[in-house]
């Protein structure tokens, strides 16, 4: 079981969903804070859902206030970076570029892609954490220090 969990985690990294930052977070986890990474992830998804919502609304309005969109996305990117969500981060960067170029179409497309990545990551992580909990706390991301 633990091995399975480890494999899943590894695949997340390999596939580029997560990057080293995630590992940093795992490093922060210890006996005193055994579920730190999971907690942070939960927080991230909650907060990013809110951001996505804001962006969605802004886009739906059709007004395309690029500055505002860029600002939202900057925030989104910051969170995603902090948690190590690399694919999501990549989409954020693209989105911002489109914003700067004033390319509404590009923004919409990228945002759609971003939401997809975001949702995929969420599912994968949820699955991962679930397994990890089942496998036992030790398993959670503890890299050999």
């Amino acid at each position, binding site marked *: 079981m633990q091995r399975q969990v480890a494999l899943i985690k590894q695949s997340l990294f390999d596939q580029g969903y997560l990057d080293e*930052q995630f590992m940093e*977070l795992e490093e922060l986890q210890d006996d005193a804070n055994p579920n730190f990474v999971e907690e942070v992830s939960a927080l991230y998804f909650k907060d990013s859902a809110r951001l996505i919502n804001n962006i969605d609304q802004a886009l739906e309005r059709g007004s395309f206030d690029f500055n505002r969109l860029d600002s939202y996305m900057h*925030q989104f990117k910051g*969170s995603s*970076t*902090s948690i190590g969500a690399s694919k999501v981060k990549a989409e954020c960067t693209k989105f911002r570029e489109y914003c700067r170029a004033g390319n509404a179409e590009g923004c919409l497309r990228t945002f759609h892609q971003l939401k997809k990545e975001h949702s995929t990551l969420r599912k994968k992580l949820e699955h991962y954490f679930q397994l990890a909990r089942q496998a036992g706390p030790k398993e959670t991301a503890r890299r050999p220090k």
Partner: protein
Amino acid sequence: MINPGHGRGPDSGTNSDPFPAGLRVLVVDDDPTCLMILERMLMTCLYRVTKCNRAELALSLLRKNKHGFDIVISDVHMPDMDGFKLLEHVGLEMDLPVIMMSADDSKSVVLKGVTHGAVDYLIKPVRIEALKNIWQHVVRKKRNEWNVSEHSGGSIEDTGGDRDMQQPREDADNNSSSVNEGNWRSSSSRKRKEGEVDDQGDDKEDTSSLKKPRVVWSVELHQQFVAAVNQLGVDKAVPKKILEMMNVPGLTRENVASHLQKYRIYLRRLGGVSQHQGNMNHSFMTGQDPSFGPLSSLNGFDLQALAVVGQLPAQSLAQLQAAGLGRSSLIKPGMSGSPLVDQRSIFNFENPKIRFGDGHGQTINNGNKQMSLLHGVPTGMEPKQFAGSSHMRVQQQMAGMRPGQNVQSSGMMLPLADHLPRGGTSMLSSLGQQQPMFSTSVSRRSDLTGAVRNGIPETNNRVVPATHSVFNNFPADLPHNNFPLASAPGISIPVSASYQEEVNSSDAKGGSSAATAGFGNPSYDIFNDFPQQQQHNSKLNDWDMRNIGLVYSHQDTAAASAGFSTSEAYSSSSMQRKRRETDATVVTAHGQNQQPLSRSLNHLNHVFMDGGSVRVKSERVAETVTCPPATTLFHEQYHQEDLMSALLKQEGIPSADNEFDFDGYSIDNIPV
């Protein structure tokens, strides 16, 4: 010394120094994910973390617990308040080191962090390794304060207590040092507040034996402080004397010393702006030849630089140049040739009255033109510094020139001359030369001071920001301290008087310079003794100086503008000061103001010119020195505060609150 209780102990090694464990960190970020991660990381480093997701909340937390934190980490982009604004507030009010962070790693933003005084800038995602060493900023700051206090003859007692401070120990008043150490240790912050106060207040020399917690530098207190400093002369001001002059019960020398340090940094920052200007001035200088004519271009430049630095000076310079030279051929931004000239311009500035009187009729336009030239000069942090240094230099040069020059100008200059061998002279010269121009340009005002004033006020606003930014860069280069100016008794004060008004006005205006201003210098008023009243004088006028400052504003970079404004501010402040003060004061003030400019100018000169320019300057200085208005220049010193505000404004840092109490200034090491 060491407070046994704190375990810091003299490295006895008995117990390992827990430091930096227990460091009290306040982290501000609107992103909850980041906040949580940072908190966890900081706790892993064994720091005491307080997290906050809103800047306003963070500020109020800090204000409530003045000594409750050692360091602040803040995000740049926050919805309720810009991170840089928070940075400014914290720096001014609480004088705590602030680290900025952001996912944005673009150079401009990082630069902004530097100019606003951040001690570090972290790029997200932040790694724990980056956080492990943040304690160094706290220690460094304390050390600097100690150093400052040492220089000023007192021991600075910082609430933080510096553990490593060796100096304090060696200081006469070691109480502080031990206290500080003890303080540090008690990082169990709770104790710190009171306990530290005790430690700090130990200095027996202080008037009050109360232990005082970190002093809050209110507007009034700051003004008193500035008044005292100006009276003593920026360079000569030592905490002990300042303390005596202020005569505030309960205020310790340490408090004054650390505030003085900050103030100097602030001035330096202003000067830094001028440095940029100085660079420009540099160009001026090269182009200028002994005659005023050529100087004009330089002067304009210098003025700009000076203005930037001192806010006022720049204006004065510009005016001077305009007046004297009547030429707008300004300086090519690249002129590097004449750092000296700049100084000269400064001199001219002061002297114009003497020499040119209103004959010059140079219009401010000339000056303006010149100012615009400055725009060309690459701005950037450096310039600012330069501005500061040139300014200072100029002052120094001026000081040097004194021997053969008019008392007034020389008086003011002299101090400068001493310090700024290189660029100072030219600046002085240019100043002198510029003065005439000023007159002309001022003619609007009818008197230099008037012109200066106008110019200055604006610059002040602008300058302030610049200075502010520079402040970090410069190692206290600005010779605020040296203000030999006092020796120019003959200097006519009229100029200064007007200057003051102008400065005030400008301050009030906040920013005539479009570009840079933005600074609300309200806080700067604090610095200026006079400003309060004058602030709203809008005498400001459209002095060339102002234009000059404005011109600068357009500089490509804010820094540049800032730099300019600084110079201008300086000029204007000097001018104003002149007005206000008596000769002695004027001199001092002027010197002070000038210093930053000189410094920056000098610096600029220095940069551009090698020794050669220095020589040139001296020659010129002699010429210009004769101008009596020199004193006026010195007065500007007061305007430093204005300058600071101006600079700050330039940088867009709203210095709206008086709390700006200015941390900016105490940089003593502004590299000239």
